[in-house]
């Protein structure tokens, strides 16, 4: 059973008009922005299901752009997101897809940053402004964005998980939830670690230094 807070019910405070179509959309795009961790030059959003059917009317497009620009769901600038994106030199494009999706409110976000690094994030808005990121760079993950999250891609070999969790313990970062995923034995693997306190850039550098199996790391 999901552990709801009273503020999941009375809340969030947000810009209208729809908790799943605006607040949730802002949060998914905001996480995508944090994951790429650099200035963004282009974004392509592909909307599926009800996002594609009714997204325009709900201002889901503005909400997604708002998230990419780093706004929170109650930011009063969201209605002006198109103009603000243009001012900041962020190119945006939308595709409203009729392809089937696992969940009615799904969006795929393809981002290119100013260094030409590409990233693809898939997320769903699961109601009441709550979200789930389900894919990062075609790798299945599960992250809610409710906690600071560290995502590590690494080689699937013994000891990597142990080192990471040991380093976090020494840095006094408590792990709330942790999931591991892999493409296959000995191939690329991912760790998705939700923590009570954020893992700072310095901490990330320490983890990288101590653990040679890590190929990439993102923090939200």
């Amino acid at each position, binding site marked *: *059973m*999901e*552990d*709801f*807070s*009273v*503020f*999941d*019910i*009375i*809340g*969030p*405070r*947000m*810009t*209208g*008009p*729809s*908790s*799943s179509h*605006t*607040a949730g959309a802002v949060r998914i795009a905001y996480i995508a922005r944090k994951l790429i961790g650099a200035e963004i030059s282009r974004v392509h959003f592909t909307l599926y299901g*009800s996002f594609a*059917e*009714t*997204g*325009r*009317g*709900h*201002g889901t*497009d*503005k909400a997604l752009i708002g998230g990419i620009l780093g706004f929170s769901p*109650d930011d*009063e600038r*969201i*209605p002006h997101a*198109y103009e603000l994106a243009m001012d900041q030199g962020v190119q945006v494009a*939308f595709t409203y897809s009729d392809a089937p999706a696992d969940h*009615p*409110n799904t969006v795929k976000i393809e981002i290119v940053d100013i260094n030409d690094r590409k990233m693809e994030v898939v997320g769903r808005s*699961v*109601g*009441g*402004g709550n979200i789930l990121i389900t894919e990062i760079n075609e790798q299945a993950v599960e992250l809610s964005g409710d906690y600071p999250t560290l995502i590590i891609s690494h080689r699937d070999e013994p000891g990597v998980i142990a080192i990471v969790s040991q380093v976090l313990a020494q840095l006094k970062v408590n792990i709330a939830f942790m999931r591991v995923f892999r493409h296959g034995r000995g191939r690329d693997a991912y760790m998705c670690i939700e923590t009570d306190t954020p893992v700072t850039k310095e901490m990330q550098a320490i983890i990288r230094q101590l653990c040679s199996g890590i190929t990439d790391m993102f923090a939200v």
Partner: protein
Amino acid sequence: MQLMEAFENGASLCQYCMAENCTIAEAMIRREVSRGEMMRDTVMEEMRKNLEVMREAVRIGLEEHVETVSHLSGGEARRLFLYAKYDPFSGGNTCRAAASAMAVCEVNSSMGRIVAAPTAGASGILPGVLIECGMERNWTDDQLIQGLFTAGAVGLLFAQNATISGADGGCQAETGVASAMAAAAIVELSGGTPEQALDAAAITIKNIMGLVCDPVAGLVECPCIKRNALGAANALLCADMVLCGITSLIPFDEVVSAMLQVGRDIRKEYRETAKGGLATTPTGKAVAEKVRRFQSYSGEY
């Protein structure tokens, strides 16, 4: 009984309140504190902030010129509120609560700031009812905040044991649950027992069970705004029924499961996809087309 177990369903919540001799609102506050993320003061402060945003949304919707992005609605809340002076059939209090609920929705549809309760589409009902009744009965902000916690507890039971999403369960899951939350809140604020508060919530849902989500042009405007007005009236009526001693034949928990079952049986066309009901009437389709053309004309898409 453990605090977390208390929130498994309505029956366990009533049992907990009876054993602890406390209100649903107090149980809700304790549970929130026990989650360990916020101290009691912060929890109360957070809810106070929600109340402030709610009150401001009601004020803006009733006093300022509100125009929605689609230009489909706006100004109707204010019209109903002013009319409430002239001996309305639904009674002044009901009429003003309904108008206040619409006010928040109009602000919501113009991409203004609101508090989802439990969702944005149903965000007018709880502030509409609480703020109007609060003014009528001189309830303090502290009392209104207690009411918000009672409402939160009821919404949480629906979220856990059924759904609060229109895409999953239709409009009954959004405006229905919002009305149930509001009804329980004013019953408890008026001295009703936890059982009475949940009975009011149960009757409120029974009254609109099966209500579909069929937004014209996919927007949170028609019929959503007027259904928030109805939701406010439904909450007030059910609270009155319970406070005069009427009970719900079907217990709260059974109503919650019935609502979930009905929600699952509602076809996808009637769950927020704008593919059925009012959305596909000739006028509904014409409006959708107009909105689409307006949007492409404004060059944003």
